[in-house]
């Protein structure tokens, strides 16, 4: 992932997170995948044996591969074609309890911030509604990052709207894109410490992150916001999520 003024990293460890699921130990090839808007392009960047670790950083990756702010790393057991019409479907590093993940994040000359990352492709057409409770104040720069990956390599833009959840007042519209990491500066909207912004995208789903950067550079903060389903546990969470989204969207879009 690449965002302005920070470098991105991805730390990969070839070791499953538990000792009973998917004990794969075969050598794998690491491929970099990125979309040019029409096709997924791939390039082999390294190999890993069981037990290896590797750190990949955005400054060592060709800028054209990171034009959308995002390139994917895929561990593969077999060679991959240089151009693909869809993302590879085989899950090589895969477990469920817990999910097999690695660490991605950003760094600068002083510090780094980590996020336990992995991403499954999202539906090409889906909506996003999320509340952002960690905008910070003082000598800090606040950005919203929206990460989207779909099987379809098309890069399409769609509207994301910001509202104040308290009075449901409209704040602004901006754009997010598929197969991209979109960086949205938030400080221009002058949110207050008591505000809880809500973001709604009718056509593009994504994983939203709050990114805080100390103006001194000495501290970075990165965490994903929750989908509405995370406000509840057990039962039919999907049904509740649907109701929550419907209820908020009806009120926000009418306002």
């Amino acid at each position, binding site marked *: 992932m690449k965002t302005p003024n920070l470098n991105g990293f991805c*730390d990969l*460890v070839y*070791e*499953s*997170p*538990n*000792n*009973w*699921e998917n004990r794969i130990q075969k050598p794998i090839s690491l491929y970099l995948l990125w979309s040019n808007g029409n096709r997924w392009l791939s390039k082999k960047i390294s190999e890993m044996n069981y*037990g*290896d*670790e590797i750190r990949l950083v955005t400054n060592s990756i060709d800028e054209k591969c990171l034009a959308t702010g995002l390139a994917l790393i895929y561990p593969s057991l077999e060679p991959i074609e240089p151009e693909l019409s869809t993302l590879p479907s085989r899950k090589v590093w895969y477990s469920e*309890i*817990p999910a*097999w993940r*690695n*660490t991605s*994040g950003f760094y600068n000359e*002083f*510090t*780094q*911030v*980590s*996020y*336990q990352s992995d991403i499954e492709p999202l539906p090409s057409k889906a909506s996003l509604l999320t*509340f952002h*409770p*960690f905008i910070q104040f003082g*000598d*800090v720069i606040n950005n919203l990052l929206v990460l989207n990956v779909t099987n379809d390599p098309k890069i399409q833009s769609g509207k994301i709207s910001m509202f*104040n*959840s*308290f009075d449901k007042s409209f704040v602004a519209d901006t754009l997010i894109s598929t197969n991209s990491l979109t960086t949205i500066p938030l400080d221009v909207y002058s949110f207050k410490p*008591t*505000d*809880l912004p809500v973001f709604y995208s009718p056509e593009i789903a994504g994983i939203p992150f*709050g990114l805080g*950067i*100390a103006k001194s550079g*000495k*501290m*970075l*903060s990165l965490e*994903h916001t*929750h989908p*509405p389903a*995370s*406000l*509840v*546990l*057990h*039962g*039919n*969470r999907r*049904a*509740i999520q649907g109701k929550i989204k419907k*209820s*908020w969207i*009806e*009120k926000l879009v009418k306002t």
Partner: protein
Amino acid sequence: MTDVLIKATKIKRRAKLLLFICKKLTKAPSNSSAVISDLFPIRNNNLWKTEFELLNVLGLIAGENNQKDPYWVNFYFYDSAGGLLGIREIEIKNIGRTTIKIMNLMDHELKKAATFAVFHPSILGKVEMSGSYLAERGYSGYEYQNLGVKGYVHGNLDAVALSNGKVEPLGNSGFIPRYYTVQHCLRGPAKYEFVFTNPTSKTIKITLNISLNKKKWLAKKSFTMNSLGSHTFTVDIEENEKAYVRFKSKLYLGRPVVFRISNDSMDVFHG
């Protein structure tokens, strides 16, 4: 032949699942009016401050964040041995978001608090919940050395329910110990602090294994945590050194919150 292999793989996986995860990761509360919370670690001393972003969760579920009626939330504070130290009732003001400075609540009997849970009012009868329970999953914000910017992390485990006035641990554990390998290569110079909470009703033993080359794991110190207790395990990594850690326990999901402290800054994330 491929079909036979796929079928055999599926049977093998199901057998392993039964052996290692024979129940759900977490139990549903025993009462339909219950509310759920994670257990949030507290870091509170001359180096650290902990804050909590308190939201009107009931209102967010109901589609209305303008809360005209009084809305009280209970913070339950626990010591590292899992003992309940005390409760503080906080009124959610009619604003979008309230940042709670945990230090300001930790007076009198709460001075040794190590974790807290946040219980909202029951939602039963107010919103049709399709068998779900209102849950407080966070976020906690941690500030190190007055850097002016907090590192945020959401709750780690759906740990406890407040059910008919009683706190009920929701985490499950198995019969066979299993490993959780932290999905992160430790890089020096840094101090790593792994914070565990025990969401089960049982005492849990955790053994740290550490490796400098991934081929040879060294069993190191073990510790036990009472039900709803917590423990912080510290690992120092020297400059140019790398290490891996894994934790052996009967916890279904022995996932710690990780604090990485380096170069007078810090990073907090799920391991």
